[in-house]
């Protein structure tokens, strides 16, 4: 459980984070979304006790970052941005070092390293120096490092940046699997990532919270109506009939040589307009060839909220 209350972080006179409040419940996977420089990383650095807050309070499982930093740090596993690692160390030594620093008892360390190697797919590289690993493997080492002490809370700053599409899918699967048992906060500016792995999304822009909800909530509340592709084979009467309806706007219509016309319609109604369109076609005896509603996606929501 993480409680952030009125968190402000100033660098000089600039406010990187400006009065943010939110809560993360145990077992939740929270996506932290925002353009670069929005304050995601700064917020994470405050939660992990790397930076002190300028104002406001942050509590992790009831421990305050100002007064109980050591306890807070014990609860958390952290993968900082750009995955810093000691490149000269071998993976096995590195994980052993982190485990020891994190207070994992010496007789349990080998077991934990073996577990992490299995979960993160590191078995084949344990004896290699980290500098010899590809970006994808380094990312896995970073994740293994964050989980080695079996923390309740995982904080991952842009865990998939710089990976190729296959690696991204792998890391996402990993996060999903981990997220079933742990509280996870992950930051990203890549939208499909949030849709793929998060229960809840916070959108942050210029240091302020601009949206908070499940990906579906956000899509629903910010879709700005709906768009439907409606294809029929019928005469010119269709256009006038559709134009006559007050709840619809015809955005465009294209007729192909075979006589099929595809209309792109938009509506401000919040309920689905497809049943109405179907009934309309039946009433007028039009042959329906296509009926498709475009899902508003998070990308639209995100652009709408964070556009200049």
């Amino acid at each position: 459980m993480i409680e952030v209350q009125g968190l402000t972080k100033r660098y000089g006179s600039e406010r990187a984070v400006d009065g943010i409040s939110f809560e993360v419940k145990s077992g939740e996977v929270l996506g932290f979304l925002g353009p670069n420089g929005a304050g995601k990383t700064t917020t994470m650095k405050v939660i992990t006790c790397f930076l002190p807050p300028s104002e406001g309070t942050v509590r992790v499982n009831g421990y305050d970052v100002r007064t109980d930093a050591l306890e807070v740090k014990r609860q958390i596993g952290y993968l900082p941005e750009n995955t810093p690692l000691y490149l000269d160390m071998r993976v096995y030594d590195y994980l052993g070092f982190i485990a020891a620093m994190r207070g994992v008892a010496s007789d349990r360390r080998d077991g934990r390293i073996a577990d992490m190697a299995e979960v993160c797919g590191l078995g084949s590289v344990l004896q290699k120096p980290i500098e010899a690993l590809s970006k994808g493997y380094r990312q896995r080492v970073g994740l293994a490092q964050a989980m080695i002490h079996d923390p309740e809370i995982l904080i991952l700053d842009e865990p998939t940046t710089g990976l190729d599409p296959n690696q991204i899918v792998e890391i996402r699967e990993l996060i999903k699997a981990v997220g079933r048992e742990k509280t996870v906060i992950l930051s990203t500016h890549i939208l499909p990532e949030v849709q793929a792995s998060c229960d809840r999304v916070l959108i942050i822009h210029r240091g302020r919270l601009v949206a908070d909800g499940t990906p579906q909530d956000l899509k629903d509340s910010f879709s700005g109506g709906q768009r439907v592709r409606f294809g029929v084979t019928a005469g010119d009467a269709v256009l006038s009939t559709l134009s006559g309806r007050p709840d619809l706007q015809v955005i465009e219509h294209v007729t192909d040589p075979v006589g099929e016309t595809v209309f792109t319609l938009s509506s401000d109604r919040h309920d689905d307009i497809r049943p109405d369109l179907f009934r309309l076609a039946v009433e007028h005896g039009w042959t329906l060839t296509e009926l498709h509603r475009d899902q508003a996606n998070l990308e639209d929501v995100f652009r709408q909220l964070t556009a200049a």
Partner: protein
Amino acid sequence: MQEAWTLTKKELQSYFDSPVAYVVLSIFLLLTGWFFSNGLFLENTASLRSVFDIVPFIFLFFIPAITMSTFAEERRAGTLELLLTMPVRDWQVILGKLMAVTLFLLVAIGMTLIYTFAVASLGDVDFGATFGGYLGLFLLGMTCGSIGIMASSMTRNQIVAFILGFGIIFVLYLMDKVTAFVPGSMSGAIQYLGTDFHYQNLLRGVVDTRDVLYYFSMTAFAGLVTMYSLARRPE
């Protein structure tokens, strides 16, 4: 404390996993060996004095070289964030690094024991002076090490850290040699601040608590400044 020791072991490991340790140790032995055998063969004196005289001078360059990466590199690579978000206190991190540097210097100093045995087999060793000398080297090494670490904590650039560390250690080394240029009333205090002044005292074979205390307080002061500069986190 356990965490500081874990860090110490890791730091030592990385010294000995890289060429740094071997380059530094061989050149250290080469230089001290040169001065020792000069005294032994050219001047026919079975004494460690020449070794004890040259080591502070070698430290001047070697200690900043060993310590320049301690925090600057962690800052540059971003691993400082990793280190400081582990459940350890800042002072434990600093202590861990200082212990690693000091132990490494002890290895270097320990290797000069060969000369002591050589002298012992050839003539009489002044045990008081030898003990004082080794104690002095240990304390001097620890103090300069903490200053080097302090310099390294202030920047993310290792070269800046080296120059800064060298500069401070050099000034402290010269402190008791410039008393002629300062008003008489201050010369005592200035002299007392010099690292070499206390080292020369110990070399005489007299272990005075004031000298020992001086080194520990300098180390503690450098440690405090390091804590302060770590608290000023990178942005």
